[in-house]
């Protein structure tokens, strides 16, 4: 079976003048006509490429931009973009139990989330990733309990009590400051915004869009409750907020 060699993932190809930020809006009959001009095999190949592309990006927790999808995968098949994306979505669901979720509707950025019912104690990846997620959950909890937003000084003070210091190299996390302020932000788990008119600059910590999609206030509150050996309802406003959120 012959397969076209898949193009390199990174970097622009020569003479790439097309504007990949815009997807042409088409009527369904137009899409149908475009579809008919391409062979099934060609479309299937593009669907497969897109599925692989999405999976690879998501394994690294890198949010996927529509611009990149168009530029690196869809390319000259722009006219059947919606068909390819829909089919890729169906494949992701059917085979992997994953779905594409748009976390930024303005810039069209996506992540993949699991559609399978979530279970407590599920081991996704038992290594450094688990440890990092543990740290992340602790930070998310702190932010939620503080009313959905916390100042960086408060977060670091809290972590200091857990013997995690931004200045020191941590034996598990390494450069913690980089992990928290760069990696978690890039992965859309945290949103860290500078507070204006502060000198030295201070930052505001909030949940990022991925955190909101991959966990819930209810789960985080349960976690806190378990840690403190209390009932979730002990924290009245957070409990109500968590309940309203589901």
């Amino acid at each position, binding site marked *: 079976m012959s*397969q076209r*060699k*898949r193009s*390199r*993932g*990174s*970097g622009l190809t020569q003479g790439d003048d097309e504007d990949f930020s815009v997807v042409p809006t088409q009527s369904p009959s137009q899409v149908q006509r475009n579809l008919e001009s391409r062979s099934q095999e060609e479309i*299937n190949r593009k669907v*497969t490429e897109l*599925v*692989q*592309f999405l*999976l*690879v*990006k998501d*394994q*690294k927790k890198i949010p996927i931009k529509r611009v990149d999808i168009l530029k*690196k995968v869809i390319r000259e098949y722009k006219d059947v973009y919606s068909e390819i994306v829909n089919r890729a979505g169906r*494949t992701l669901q*059917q*085979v*992997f*139990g*994953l779905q594409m979720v748009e976390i930024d509707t303005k810039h069209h950025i996506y992540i993949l989330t*699991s559609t*399978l*019912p979530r*279970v407590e104690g*599920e*081991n*996704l*990846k*038992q290594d*450094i*990733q688990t440890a990092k997620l543990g740290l992340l959950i602790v930070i998310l909890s702190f932010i939620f309990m503080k009313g959905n937003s916390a100042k960086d000084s408060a977060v670091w003070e809290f972590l200091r009590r857990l013997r995690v210091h931004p200045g020191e190299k941590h034996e598990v996390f390494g450069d913690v400051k980089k992990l928290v302020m760069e990696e978690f932000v890039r992965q859309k788990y945290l949103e860290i915004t500078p507070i204006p008119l502060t000198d030295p600059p201070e930052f505001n910590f909030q949940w990022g869009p991925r955190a909101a999609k991959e966990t819930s206030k209810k789960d985080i509150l349960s976690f806190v409750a378990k840690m403190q050996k209390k009932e979730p309802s002990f924290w009245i406003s957070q409990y109500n907020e968590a309940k309203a959120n589901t």
Partner: protein
Amino acid sequence: MAAQMSDAHRRFLQVLMSHGIMEGAEARKLHRCCCEISKAYYAQDKLDDFVSTINNQLQPLFMQIRKGMSEVDGRTHYALVNMAETEITKMASDYAENELELFRKTMDLIILSENGFASSTDILNSADQLKTKKMKKKEAEQVLKIFVDDKWLSERNGEYTLHTRCIMEMEQYILSTYPDIAKKCNICHSLAIQSQACETCGTGMHLPCVGKYFKTQSRPRCPQCNDFWPYEIPDRSRIDSQSSSRRVSRRELQSL
């Protein structure tokens, strides 16, 4: 008849995908957990059937869950591999051009070496001569660490070899890219990066395969040319293969 794809299968696939590669025992445990969670029928010891069902769905996507053997301890591993690649495309979207070039150079060094290992010194020296974009030693060290974290390389005592996952993923690519140099194990006929090779006829075998093959023989001989096998036979229960590649001295050989 292949079973239907279910949430149990999907859950298994999600977890395997996030690990990249899993040991046989871990995979069996995961199989049981996934069936329990989804309240699906659990057929004990039917992991391979379970995996076949998933593979039927993965085939049109040019992906497969493959079984492979670790060259270090001989244990079975399961990995999700990409079948469509004629080059290291899977890595292409994860790494920069010069990082990929460094990986290829590292792979060259590993495959051309006697023992399947490349020293970090040699790798770092080649970082200096990259055609795409030169890399300083410090940066190259970090990139190597990422390759290890991502399970493309394994590190031992400052030397690097290919991770089991990498070998499983790129076996076809390696065999076709290094047709005269890459060795196949005489016993299991899979690609062998680390191996013991007969000094007379060059026949090579994986260390775990050597252990299995020579288990009952008191005077090990090459299966091809019948010459004395000059190496220490790896003990099946031992995981560390470093000393197993040690050549047996004449005196030790005579006392066998």
